[in-house]
């Protein structure tokens, strides 16, 4: 059998993975959900035909979206995670004994239910007693919060479809309001490589800029995302991700990570010139 999953990474470039078995297909209220068994990447979750996670490379994304802010401010106690239905971000956060509360807001309960069933690798810690699950619109949830969270992680889909609202100025402004005075906002920041993604990336950067005194972008290499070159946004009211990194303290925690370390933490903020230019264009 010759069964392949193919995703358009741009209108003129495609990425394909050989599929062993199509484990699940269904339509939720918000999006089309598919889960594949593959040889190369293990289980693969796609939403509306876009890869969200694969068992093989999800660690890169989840390490980088959580440990960078956590190492910058080890004092973080209360975290809001928006999106992240696969549970991978929560899994990483629960490694920190110091965190007291994790609120996770995912619009689509079906994604969470299916990941619990098919992809326990990421969904394994969703039952941690510190985790509260809310199935509602992230923008609506955060609008009602004020001075409440030390860290907000926006682990969203792309800026079209159900995740649209999480790339807007009103959302970032609401996040600013929902954060404490030393709060940090980390978001999935799209890719600088293909034209459409780069526009979304620039728009996101421009919209965050207005609110936070510290706005940085860092990168990682995620093979199954378009171009593999992926960015994260780091916006903060007080802590600088490099100047305030306490590498010794983080290393003393002795956490096991597969991608993140304190050297890569610093190095990930070193950006290629073409990315710097794109960011400067909107600054």
């Amino acid at each position, binding site marked *: 059998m010759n069964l392949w999953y193919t995703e358009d990474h741009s209108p003129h470039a495609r990425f394909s993975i050989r599929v062993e078995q199509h484990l699940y297909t269904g339509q939720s209220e918000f999006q089309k959900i598919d889960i594949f068994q593959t040889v190369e990447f293990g289980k693969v979750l796609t939403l509306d035909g876009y890869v969200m996670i694969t068992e093989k490379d999800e660690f890169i994304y989840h390490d980088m979206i959580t440990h960078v802010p956590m190492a910058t401010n080890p004092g973080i106690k209360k975290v809001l995670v928006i999106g992240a239905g696969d549970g991978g971000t929560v899994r990483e956060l629960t490694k920190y004994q110091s965190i007291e509360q994790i609120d996770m807001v995912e619009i689509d309960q079906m994604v969470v239910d299916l990941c619990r069933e098919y992809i326990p690798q990421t969904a394994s810690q969703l039952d941690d007693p510190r985790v509260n699950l809310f199935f509602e619109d992230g923008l*609506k949830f955060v609008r009602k919060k004020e001075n409440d969270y030390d860290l907000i992680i926006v682990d969203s889909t792309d800026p079209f479809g159900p995740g649209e609202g999480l790339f*807007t100025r009103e959302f970032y402004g*609401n996040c600013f309001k929902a954060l404490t005075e030393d709060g940090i906002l980390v978001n999935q920041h799209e890719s600088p490589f293909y034209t459409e993604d780069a526009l979304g990336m620039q728009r996101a950067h421009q919209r965050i800029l207005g609110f936070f005194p510290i706005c940085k972008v860092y990168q990682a290499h995620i093979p199954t995302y378009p171009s593999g070159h992926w960015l994260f946004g780091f916006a903060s009211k007080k802590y600088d991700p490099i100047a305030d990194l306490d590498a010794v303290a983080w290393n003393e925690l002795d956490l096991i990570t597969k991608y993140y370390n304190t050297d890569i933490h610093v190095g990930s903020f070193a950006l290629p010139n073409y990315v710097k230019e794109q960011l400067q264009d909107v600054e």
Partner: protein
Amino acid sequence: MTHLSQEKAPIMEALNRYKHMRVVPFDVPGHKRGRGNEELAAFLGEQCLAVDVNSMKPLDNLCHPVSIIKEAEQLAAQAFGAKHAFFMVNGTTSAVQAMIMTACKAGDKIIMPRNVHRSAINALILTGAVPVYVNPGVHEELGIPLGMSVQDVERAILENPDAKAILINNPTYYGICSNLQALTDLAHEHQMLVLVDEAHGTHFYFGENLPASAMSVGADMASVSMHKSGGSLTQSSFLLINNEMSEGHTRQIINLTQTTSGSYLLLSSLDISRKNLALHGRQVFEKVAQMSQYTRDEINKIGGYYAFSKELLNGDTIFDFDVTKLSVHTREIGLAGIEIYDILRDEYDIQIEFGDIGNLLAYISVGDRQLDLERLVAALAEIKRRYAKDKNDVFDHEYINPQVVATPQKAFYAPKKNLPLAESAGYISSEFVMCYPPGIPILAPGERITTEILDYIAYCKEKGCFLTGTEDSAIQHINVLKEVE
């Protein structure tokens, strides 16, 4: 009239048949199904240009319908409960003008509220009809013009028993309805025609628990903007007639000003939208009302904003309220509606219908998604957090009772001179000044210019309203009558 199935869409079906015939076009339009204008075809789509065709036997003729357009008109009439429905392709403006021109000749009086759309007063310039204005009054807190009170209209009727017709907004831009049944009955008792501007009321014909529609209360004519809540293409509209109104005469009046090259894009969009509303309108507008109510509740929870609804009803000048409208009073947060309108677009990429001094209006339709509603609410919450000011910064007068000195037609065509706006107080205006939207004149031809009006215009300018109406596109000069009466 024989009963027709609302499943049918005769104009769309005829266009489909016509496409399949693969007729060689040696007629206009010269783009010839788009082949002669590649860039246009690429931009609008070949499918669209393939049905941008001329009237011809198989496709009927809008000026004198005998086949498929006639059938489509009958279907529309049936769907709206009218005696006849005309397809209008020059906007609801042309429908309003056709109503007034059908009812009134030069010198005839017509009773109307002053907060009419410019199209109604334009019709007075064209016909020479004489307006008898009924002051709609202003809501004290919200500063918006209301409906007409039955008592005021009765007084106007008794003082002007020779008036030929009465024009009613159903609803106003903000969603406010007069007592349409009582006004219609009253006018009919005095042998006056009832003309209803339903530019914002298409859905009244299809939704449940919505205000009464013109045809349902026995009004004589109604102009219905299908392209607003009805879902058809911009500029397409229906003119409905009822009772003893003559179909033939009304069509003659329409043909005085309507194009002889009616667009089949617009006609088919009316036909398809009528079908959709007839079959699914009830569910569609139930959903729209729910979305509006949800958004209204969430906006009211923010505090400072007041998204108003049926609690305003007073049995007369606010006889009913259109709950699909999302009108929001903004004065308590110290920002003019127009300022929020601009911030929403410039900062949040959200375009709303309009903002005036104390209010804004967001148009909710079946095309809206829950996530878009959340964006609007979140953006309003953010605007309050970031920009709220002292409420005393906002002017608190919207409606200024006009002093009508000459008829609109006489003032428009009279010998005139051009003055700087600031020096025009005391003169009689020969032209309009209005904010667009909503397009309700601040000054109409024939009205006296006062310092109060000039202050209001200056304030609107300062707040960023888009002013229009005068010959001078910068709205710094105004034409006034040479003779001061």
